[in-house]
């Protein structure tokens, strides 16, 4: 996944003048300043909580409670709602009738003005939210009062391609887990924010980083590595939740990454590969798996009953130049399933073999029953790709049941040239790292699309540059092409698009769906809206002060339903940065 600015956001060009290394707000209180000082001294964290009896206090988060997430209308235990990652929440107090009365309850101001991409988790009256640069806050979910604040102290040299993002935390037992830009997993006390353990998972000097939220399940923490723009070898790792000891590692690029020399992608488009040249390169160079990329940018989905893990793998490295990485480049641009206990391979489906467009798979996989081609209801997997397709899979063997093109396409799978070739969608998507939501009652999957084109260039091959930016080509905005965004609802049982809502800016963030018949989503313009899930009709909106480019979460507290979303803007599309989480209540 690479970030490329969309020409639409041209109107938002910044002209601000700067004065410090990071833009701090003026809200930093004395206590916060002390916390920062302690962090600087290496303590890593300080608790700002006092010990009043009314303070929200997290209880222990058992596996049993986590398993119930899909049926629990009170809490929001995991960042994509539940292990199936449906982002469908059972709370229905806010619904198509009452949403008109949804009001801002409070805002929580964070200490950095940068991209926000995570959805908070909320349980036992405490909300855990993150910002860019791995700042983690525990906040009273009713009042917005800060309980503690952890500011991660980074390694000196970290490379991140697409913004200093973080996509949230996981919790299990008495611990909260955050993965960091310098490729660590940090376990903190949910009550105090004190670091219990920290584990280095990969070398940031080789381009490894982590922006995904971890997933906590069955005593394990699952987390994926990113950094394909720097020639990493990607992996999904399982660590012991108590100690951080490694349980298993699944390399996203296996030692035999060659595959079947596929000439067409999963939707049947010709890949225009020169297989003879690739075979010659393979004989000369060997298998490229050690620097082949395969980032993971989002949480895996968990099938609790069958103890299976489903996740998608990002682009091969280098992004645009396939000549130095002959073969299908397994398992890049793929849906992969592995065994939860052992990490052993079960099945995969590669969307785009030997991708040279960065048309990868980054939006998190969703598990839900789907109708197969014979009309039978079977366990299924949904994924929406940067290629702009919604893919529906058979969960048993990962095979593709159907796919639906969600965006306008032009020159799909054309080969990049020295002069530049215009391709639509470009590498921002389609559907980027933005999660889907589904409404299982309606059988609809909701996706946010980026309707834009890019020019793709190939100049010359370069060898692996030891952890440096390695794109293998270039790309540039195409101002002559129209850009916009859509909210798209697709019937995943038939593949038919049910409705689309057109928005002026390419969409990036995520969707929350609820049993109240609503979906919630934000825009780069700062709008945050609620829509009728069945029709797409906008029923409510609120204008924030920065791009709303994160997925929302919801929870119940003292009889009221709350909806929380970050408004931090977005680095890669250069949407206006902000420093607040907005919390609405009815």
């Amino acid at each position, binding site marked *: 996944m690479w970030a490329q*600015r969309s020409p639409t956001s041209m109107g938002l060009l910044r002209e*601000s003048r*700067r004065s410090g290394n990071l833009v701090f707000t003026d809200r930093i209180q004395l206590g916060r300043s002390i916390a920062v000082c302690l962090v600087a001294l290496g303590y890593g964290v300080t608790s700002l909580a006092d010990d009043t009896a009314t303070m929200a206090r997290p209880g222990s988060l058992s596996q049993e409670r986590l398993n119930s997430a899909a049926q629990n209308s009170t809490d929001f235990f995991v960042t994509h709602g539940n292990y199936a990652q449906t982002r469908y929440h059972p709370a229905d107090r806010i619904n198509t009738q009452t949403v008109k009365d949804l009001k801002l309850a409070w805002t929580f101001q964070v200490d950095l*003005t940068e991209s926000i991409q995570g959805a908070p988790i909320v349980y036992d009256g405490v909300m855990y939210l993150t910002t860019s640069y791995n700042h983690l806050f525990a906040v009273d979910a009713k009042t917005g009062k800060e309980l503690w604040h952890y500011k991660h102290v980074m390694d000196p040299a970290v490379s991140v391609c697409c913004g200093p993002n973080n996509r949230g935390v996981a919790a299990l037992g008495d611990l909260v887990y955050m993965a960091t830009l310098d490729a660590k997993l940090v376990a903190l006390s949910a009550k105090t924010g004190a670091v219990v353990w920290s584990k280095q998972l990969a070398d940031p000097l080789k381009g490894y980083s982590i922006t995904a939220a971890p997933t906590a399940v069955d005593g394990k923490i699952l987390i994926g590595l990113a950094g394909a723009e720097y020639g990493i070898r990607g992996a999904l790792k399982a660590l012991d939740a108590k100690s951080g000891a490694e349980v298993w590692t699944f390399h996203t690029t296996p030692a035999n990454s060659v595959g079947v020399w596929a000439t067409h992608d999963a939707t049947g488009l010709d890949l225009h590969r020169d297989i003879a040249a690739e075979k010659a390169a393979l004989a000369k160079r060997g298998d490229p798996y050690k620097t082949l990329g395969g980032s993971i940018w989002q949480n895996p989905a968990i099938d609790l009953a069958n103890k299976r893990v489903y996740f998608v793998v990002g682009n091969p490295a280098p992004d645009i130049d396939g000549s130095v990485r002959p073969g299908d480049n397994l398992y890049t641009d793929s849906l992969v399933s592995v065994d939860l206990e052992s990490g052993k391979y079960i099945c995969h489906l590669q969307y785009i073999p030997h991708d040279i467009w960065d048309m990868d798979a980054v939006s998190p996989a969703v598990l839900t029953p789907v109708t197969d081609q014979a009309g039978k209801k079977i366990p299924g997997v949904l994924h929406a790709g940067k290629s702009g397709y919604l893919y529906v899979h058979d969960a048993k063997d990962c095979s593709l049941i159907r796919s639906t093109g969600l965006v306008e396409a032009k020159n799909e799978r054309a080969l990049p040239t020295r002069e530049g070739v215009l391709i639509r969608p470009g590498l921002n998507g389609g559907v980027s790292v933005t999660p889907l939501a589904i409404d299982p009652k309606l059988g609809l999957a909701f996706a946010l699309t980026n309707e834009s084109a890019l020019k793709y260039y190939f*100049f010359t091959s370069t060898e692996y*540059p030891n952890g440096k*930016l390695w794109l293998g080509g270039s790309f540039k*905005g195409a101002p002559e092409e129209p850009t916009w965004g859509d909210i798209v609802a697709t019937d995943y049982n038939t593949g038919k698009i049910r409705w689309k809502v057109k928005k002026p800016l390419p969409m990036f963030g995520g969707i929350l769906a609820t049993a109240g018949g609503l979906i919630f989503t934000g825009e780069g313009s700062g709008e945050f809206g609620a829509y009728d899930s069945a029709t797409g009709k906008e029923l409510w909106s609120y204008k924030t002060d920065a791009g709303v480019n994160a997925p929302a979460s919801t929870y119940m507290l003292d009889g009221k339903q709350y909806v929380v979303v970050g408004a931090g803007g977005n*680095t890669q599309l250069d949407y206006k940065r902000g420093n607040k989480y907005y919390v609405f209540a009815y």
Partner: protein
Amino acid sequence: MSQKFVLKIIAHSALLLLAGFAGAGVAQAQAIEQRAAVCKACHVAGTLPSTSVIPNIWGQSEGYTYIQLRDFKSGARNAPEDAAMRGFVATMSDADMLEIAKYASTQPWPKVEPISTDAALLKKGAYATALGGCVGCHFNDWNGFSANPRIGDQSTAYLAATIRQFRSGSRANSPGMSDLVRTFDEGDIEAVAAYLNAAQ
């Protein structure tokens, strides 16, 4: 950069090298400020002219400075203009490089002037950086982060020279950057350098 200028820097380098890095043990004992004085001979801590082909390094991202020092030493960064720096880093240990990079990152960013007021040029530069997607790595207000340098408020001449080095491949320590700036034409380079220089 003229050849004469390069030679002058190399000569200075040799002297400063002897003065500043006369041995690892001695170097360790020196206060970091004293050792950084070597750097300040060329990388001025006062106002930096926008015509300077020597960049400002004070207040620069720690990771970026460290990696450049490392690459000078390994030869990964090996353009003709880098000869002087290669001399300086020859006896530096990894710990020295990290220490200097950290120290430099904590220093105030100096004034860099003059900045261009040519509205058309600045607009062109803003447009080219937008199409080029520069913000994807260099971030909000061009501040950079860690291994990615701050490029806002840098010397115009240095920025333009650097883009040209990446384009030609003479600076070979970021092939990704080389590919990205190969979509710029000469006019873009001047405009981008002026725009970033003025983004203070």
